């Protein structure tokens, strides 16, 4: 009983995150190398993530001058733990849900916000100016898309009449939310970019700050942070696939496989955006977030509410 109820879910979540992080690393570098028209054989080498792992582990892990050691060490672990928490509420099939919380959606919201705290801590605790700047910039911008995330998620909970993710999946049996609320997924993807500070919303570790919060990480400590960030991408993809693409629902194939396929699709979209869209300037993003995204998410919510009443 304990095996099935406690160990199996933990095992599944951790394995998914770690394997998923490897897949993200592979896809990220492979698509980047293809975009740069590098040699095909080398850029598609399936062992490349292992080589990078080896490189990270054989480098020294540098410490900045007088950092806040506890938080510096803790932040990557916490970021990973948050990813695990977020993934835990995702249902894999009708009867396998690692943590079937009644308020799964609210928990995901909490994960998003706590991630902001953890990312800030990571940059702040290094006691160096570039990571600090990255952290501040991230927080001051991050708070502006959190609201969008809340409204979009409430919109998804409306047709399900529940905050439980298994109910949200059930509510998509006839029509997926991506069709029912056409604005939801694009808005949610933007939130995902912000949550993982990826691509156009990479404010925490942008190129102009010399990689911001990662600027003073090296070796193993950088590896752990990267792992956590990739894990968060994976968790987000699973969540997006669950709330907008019908989760494990689908014909012919078993449920979990459908879920993985849909999550991979979301992941590929995110990676594509990362390589092809320029990093926004903070100033422009603030205006876009408040003037465009927030009203759009209102419209999305009203749309969802009207449909639910009708």
């Amino acid at each position: 009983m304990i095996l099935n109820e406690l160990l199996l879910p933990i095992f599944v979540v951790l394995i998914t995150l770690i394997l998923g992080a490897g897949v993200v690393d592979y896809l990220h570098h492979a698509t980047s190398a293809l975009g740069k028209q590098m040699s095909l054989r080398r850029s598609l080498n399936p062992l490349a993530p292992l080589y990078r792992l080896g490189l990270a582990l054989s480098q020294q892990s540098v410490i900045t001058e007088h950092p806040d050691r506890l938080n510096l060490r803790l932040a990557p672990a916490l970021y990973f733990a948050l990813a695990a928490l977020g993934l835990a509420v995702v249902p894999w099939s009708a009867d396998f849900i690692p943590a079937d919380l009644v308020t799964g959606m609210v928990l995901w919201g909490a994960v998003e916000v706590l991630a902001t705290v953890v990312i800030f801590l990571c940059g702040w605790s290094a006691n160096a100016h570039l990571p600090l700047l990255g952290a501040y910039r991230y927080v001051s911008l991050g708070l502006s898309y959190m609201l969008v995330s809340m409204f979009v998620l409430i919109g998804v909970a409306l047709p399900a009449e529940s905050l439980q993710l298994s109910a949200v999946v059930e509510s998509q049996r006839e029509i997926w939310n991506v069709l029912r609320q056409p604005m939801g997924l694009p808005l949610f993807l933007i939130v995902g970019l912000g949550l993982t500070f990826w691509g156009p919303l990479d404010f925490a570790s942008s190129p102009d700050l010399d990689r911001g919060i990662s600027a003073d990480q090296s070796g193993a400590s950088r590896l752990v942070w990267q792992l956590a960030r990739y894990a968060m991408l994976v968790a987000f993809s699973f969540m997006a696939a669950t709330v907008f693409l019908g989760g494990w629902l689908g014909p012919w194939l078993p449920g979990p496989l459908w879920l993985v396929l849909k999550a991979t699709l979301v992941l590929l979209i995110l990676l594509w955006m990362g390589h092809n869209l320029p990093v926004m300037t903070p100033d422009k993003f603030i205006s876009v977030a408040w003037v465009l995204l927030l009203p759009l998410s209102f419209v999305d919510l009203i749309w969802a509410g009207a449909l639910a009443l009708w």
Partner: protein
Amino acid sequence: MVGIWTDITFYLCAAIAVFSGWRVFRTDSMVRASFLLLISFLAVGVIMLLLAAVYLGTALFFMMAVEMMVMALFMVMFMMNPAGLNPMNMVHQPWVAALLGFAVFTGLSLVAVYGEFPANPAPADLDPVRSLGRELLGDSMLVFESAGIALLATMIGTVVLSSHRGRYGPANEGSEPPGLDPGGPPAKSAAQKQQQREEQKEQEEDKQDHDQ
């Protein structure tokens, strides 16, 4: 079996909540202080989950995370000791405060121990989230909505209070920084100091020219 684990979790969370709540006022760094407070809130949130208040527990997580994040940002913007690099101690009347705090704790604990409360636990088949939702949008809608109106009023008030231009012009017109010591000369901003230095330099140069 389940009961033991619940108890262990409860005592752990209670210890964390109180300990980190106390550490809030014992750390040099404002950022650390606000995150310690966050930990205290998170621990209370877990206790609420244990008490089957599922919605409240999880809502507390994200409410407090946002709040503490904003707090940390503000701290660093204003406070003289942003990163907690310099030890500092900014307290007044610590002993009176500690005594009062302890007295309140003792009083409330005595009430808790000796007071008589009805043992009337929530029914096992209660769906707390659903019942909360029905209450919020049913009988107590007025209360709930007035909380919403109050928040709206807060938003407007906040913007008015903190904006640069008040109703009668710039909000900081004619203001002067406080003294470093009580009654002492005001602390100057770096810009003012720079200006002062430059003026001094010019004066000296003038003097030199004069001498020559």
